[in-house]
């Protein structure tokens, strides 16, 4: 056999060994894949949508696919994110399934609910704030120009004639090559009397006079999970059309870090993410233009605002060094580039303005929010602003001093890293209320629930805190109060902790139960602690107090949909006067719109990027301290949810045994009054239960009994002789309000005895105990907790243990 042919065959055979076929249903896609790659890796370059937040790390358990080929059971350590049922059905995680041989997999049906995606596209004007008239100066302008006959005759270049015709301000007029290529025909067709389309001192086009008032621009809000586009009429500043879509980059992870990780690991990573983004944006543009009946050639300018990484990817810049300390971006300048260079399909000479950024994590989106808030245009008031998206960005200050910081808040607040979390699309529980003893959900698209989005998660946890189903340390526990009794069965014990059943299989859209798991609460605690700590750090850095802040602006989807009381209840926001809170809506987009309509705002954004003081929290230990200090939920919030009802129920069901004092000093009948006097002095008490020689309850002796005896000179009396034997007693299983209702007397201490043996003392119910029960009910009507931290240290009894034990026993 020919040697070369043999080698060829060997090579071919080797190639066959090195590759396998992956057949993807229902798209009927055949992929030739390198052996050993995971299904997740193989699907990356395709359009197949699979779930997942973590970018293929095997952490989130959401990239489930069904393996239709015969498949073995994965090793134990890879089973934790799948249920028994799923394993039986051949469901596997795409990122943990390696391709060793040909495989047929089925991905879920293509997501058809794109239309219902709840993306915040509207923005709110606030406080009558509109674009000042003198600021109205769009980034691209059109000017009527008439080149007079005199200039036409003497053989001057066309561009020179235009310079002369336009006057001294345009002496340096330049033109794009593309424009020059069509300029002579265009000038002559209009008889040297037409419209110049200008961007700064660049001529972009020459048009007929009829085009003068036909002038549009597009602004993009580049969110990590969602993209919003707005078509704006540059003549009057009106928004003509708005469109939004999910960011298709999400398949490379729902957070910036996962995507930058992808960029880092793949030679064509930047190009790939850039291409996907541009494809999305061009779809948005097509949609906007079609809706408004405008041609792509009519759009000469676009403005994009996003986080620094997204802005880099729009410009095909390698942003991967943003992902590790010291978080270095390639560029933070505001950029004006030719839109066509990025692949955007607008007029070939259209200009794309990309917002300036401050740092790797303070992008043009936050600068847009600051512009929209107007915070930097005044120096009287201190303004706090929050943009809570995938990442949390915070600003504080005003025109004289503005500070920013960025915190890793997003995943949980956008439904990621939450077991049944999802972004706010059809089926997401967006709002939760408690009425008539049961929970009620508001679901996006008004269908049965599929999961929880950020606002739904915050509201659910706030309600469960109020009901005592989550305690202030974040532990899910079985409720004991009557208010929440219908929900008791929803608390399910699993793996040593409790999970909360949000929806049963019957109640949900997909026939699978929806849970709020203990670890989901932990994720939310981390997220809200990060935001709260960011706010706290800025406030201290600025040297002000919470009360000095006169306005609080909330931007972003979560900021708009979440109930402000819920956000304060879980401690995501500090307690403010709710009237100080202003919802800005899609403020990044608003800021971008302001920029497209005003060169003044473009300059202001660039100046802001320079003047802002950015506080990098990663280096600061005080942030870490605040972070930990804010991880618990606030304890003593004023009760605003069914407070009286909850309080009454709780008090009415606290039993004597739960709050009584068990280690209370007693005295024997045989003790002398002087001994009693000493005991009163030593213990600081005002009276004692008196026990007979057999240790059984005889009566009660108080300081009043003693003083009466001493007045009579009875120094050698025995306690048994002065004690009161007519007793008002209580039983451990009696309810507190029953005991209190049975007597009008103000007893300092009530002996607690066994119901079936009234001479057997088991404890003492003191006035303080009753007060404590009320205080506890008041404080803990909502957030029940161990109680041990609430007990003043001076009380050397074991009331706390008693209560603690009772509660734990019941809760488990």
């Amino acid at each position, binding site marked *: 056999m020919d040697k070369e042919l043999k080698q060829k065959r060997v090579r071919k055979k080797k190639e066959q060994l090195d590759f396998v076929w992956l057949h993807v249903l229902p798209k009927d896609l055949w992929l030739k894949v390198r052996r050993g790659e995971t299904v997740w890796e193989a699907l990356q370059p395709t359009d197949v949508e699979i779930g997942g937040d*973590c*970018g293929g*790390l*095997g*952490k989130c358990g959401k990239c489930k696919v069904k393996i239709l080929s015969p498949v073995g059971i994965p090793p134990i*350590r*890879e089973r934790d994110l799948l249920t028994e049922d799923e394993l039986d059905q051949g469901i596997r995680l795409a990122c*943990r399934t390696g391709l060793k041989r040909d495989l047929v997999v089925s991905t879920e049906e293509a997501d058809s609910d794109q239309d219902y995606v709840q993306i915040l596209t509207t923005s709110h004007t606030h406080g009558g704030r509109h674009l000042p008239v003198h600021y109205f100066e769009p980034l691209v302008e059109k000017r009527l120009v008439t080149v007079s006959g005199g200039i036409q005759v003497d053989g001057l270049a066309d561009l020179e004639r235009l310079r002369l015709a336009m006057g001294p301000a345009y002496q340096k007029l330049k033109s794009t090559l593309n424009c020059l290529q069509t300029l002579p025909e265009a000038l002559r067709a209009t008889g040297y009397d037409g419209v110049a389309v200008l961007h700064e001192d660049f001529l972009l086009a020459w048009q007929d006079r009829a085009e003068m008032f036909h002038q549009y621009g597009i602004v993009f809000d580049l969110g990590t999970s969602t993209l919003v586009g707005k078509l704006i009429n540059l003549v009057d500043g009106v928004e003509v059309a708005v469109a939004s879509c999910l960011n298709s980059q999400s398949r490379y992870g729902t957070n910036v*870090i*996962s995507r*930058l*990780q992808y960029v*880092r690991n793949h030679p064509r990573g930047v190009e790939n993410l850039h291409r996907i983004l541009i494809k999305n944006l061009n779809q948005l543009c097509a949609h906007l233009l079609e809706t408004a009946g405008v041609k792509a050639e009519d759009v000469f300018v676009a403005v994009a605002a996003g986080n620094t990484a997204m802005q880099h990817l729009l410009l095909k810049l390698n942003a*991967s060094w943003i*992902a*590790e*300390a010291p978080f270095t971006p390639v560029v933070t300048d505001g950029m004006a580039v030719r839109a066509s260079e990025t692949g955007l399909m607008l007029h070939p000479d259209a200009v794309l303005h990309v917002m300036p950024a401050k740092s790797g994590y303070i992008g043009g989106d936050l600068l847009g929010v600051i512009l929209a808030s107007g915070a930097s245009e005044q120096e009287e008031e201190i303004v706090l602003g929050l943009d809570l998206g995938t990442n949390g960005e915070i600003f504080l200050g005003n025109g004289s001093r503005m500070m920013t910081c960025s915190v890793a808040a997003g995943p949980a607040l956008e439904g990621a890293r939450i077991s049944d979390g999802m972004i706010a699309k059809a089926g997401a529980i967006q709002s939760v209320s408690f009425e008539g003893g049961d929970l009620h959900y508001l679901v996006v698209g008004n269908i049965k629930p599929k999961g929880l989005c950020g606002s739904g998660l915050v509201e659910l946890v706030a309600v469960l805190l109020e009901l005592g189903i989550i305690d202030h*340390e*974040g*532990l899910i526990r079985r409720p004991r109060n009557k208010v929440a009794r219908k929900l008791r069965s929803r608390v399910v014990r699993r*793996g*040593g*902790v409790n999970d909360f059943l949000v929806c049963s299989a019957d109640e949900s859209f997909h026939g699978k139960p929806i849970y709020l798991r*203990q*670890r989901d609460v*932990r994720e939310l*605690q981390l997220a809200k602690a990060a935001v709260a700590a960011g706010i706290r750090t800025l406030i201290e850095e600025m040297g002000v107090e919470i009360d000095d802040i006169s306005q609080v602006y909330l931007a972003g989807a979560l900021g708009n949909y979440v109930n402000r009381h819920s956000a304060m209840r879980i401690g995501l926001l500090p307690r403010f006067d709710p009237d100080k809170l202003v919802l800005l809506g899609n403020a990044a987009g608003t800021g971008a719109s302001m920029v497209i309509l005003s060169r003044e705002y473009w300059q202001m954004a660039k100046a802001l990027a320079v003047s802002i003081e950015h506080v990098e929290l*990663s*280096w600061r*230990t005080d942030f*870490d301290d605040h*972070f*930990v*200090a804010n*991880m*618990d939920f606030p304890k003593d919030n004023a009760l605003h949810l069914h407070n009286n009802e909850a309080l009454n129920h709780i008090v009415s069901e606290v039993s004597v045994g739960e709050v009584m004092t068990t280690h209370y000093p007693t005295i024997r009948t045989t003790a002398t009054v002087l001994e009693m006097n000493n005991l009163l002095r030593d213990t600081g008490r005002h009276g004692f239960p008196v026990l007979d020689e057999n240790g059984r309850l005889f009566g009660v002796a108080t300081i009043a009994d003693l003083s009466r005896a001493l007045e009579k000179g009875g120094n050698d009396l025995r306690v048994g002789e002065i004690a009161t034997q007519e007793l008002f007693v209580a039983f451990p299983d009696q309810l507190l309000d029953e005991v209190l209702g049975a007597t009008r007397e103000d007893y300092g201490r009530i002996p607690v005895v066994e119901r079936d043996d009234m001479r057997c003392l088991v404890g003492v119910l003191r006035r303080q105990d009753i007060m404590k029960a009320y205080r506890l009910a008041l404080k803990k009507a909502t957030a029940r907790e*161990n109680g*041990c931290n609430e007990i003043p*240290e001076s009380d050397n009894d074991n009331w706390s243990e008693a209560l603690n034990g009772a509660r734990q026993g019941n809760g488990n």
Partner: protein
Amino acid sequence: MSDFKALSDAVIKGDINAAVAQTQQALEAGHNPHDVIDKGLVAGMDEVGNRFSKGQFFVPQMLRAAKTMQECMKLLHPLLKEGDVVSKGKILIGTVKGDLHDIGKNLVAMMLEGAGFEIVDLGVDVPPEKFVEKVQENRPDIVAMSALLSTTMPAMPQTITAIEKAGLRDKVKVMIGGAPVTEKYAQEIKSDGYASDAGGAVNKAKGLLGIP
């Protein structure tokens, strides 16, 4: 053992006053400081680790418990004679290069310390060379690395390689952890161990050194 239950409970609850009082009582009752540490404090921290792993405890509760133990140790430390302290082993710990996350690493360090290990904490953003230098200097039994970002995870194999090149790989065990890290990744980069949380890290460290 039950003598120290109240002390362990106080540590678990993070009740500093009660724990200090219990420690004093135990000493007054003539108990050996080592017993107070092992059977009281360490036993309490073990339970804290367990509860943390299950999700019953969260970061603040764990920190409070660790702080409680530290306060008790202040009483006990002067009573321990030089050379009397038997460390379970020396562990070098740090967050890898490019990563500034401190809290998770600190929790692990605290729990390890609570379990009786000697800790050398290199801090955050620790480059591979520094790990190597400190291994040479301190001769630890274990090198523990943390990374919170998927983008800084590659610094882990880089550090392992650097330790290998310095000829120290057979002298130390390596364990890793952090939110994006998995058991599988640990195997891929030939780390000797992985733990998903601070409680698990203690068990893993004991396992690596053959401590029951």
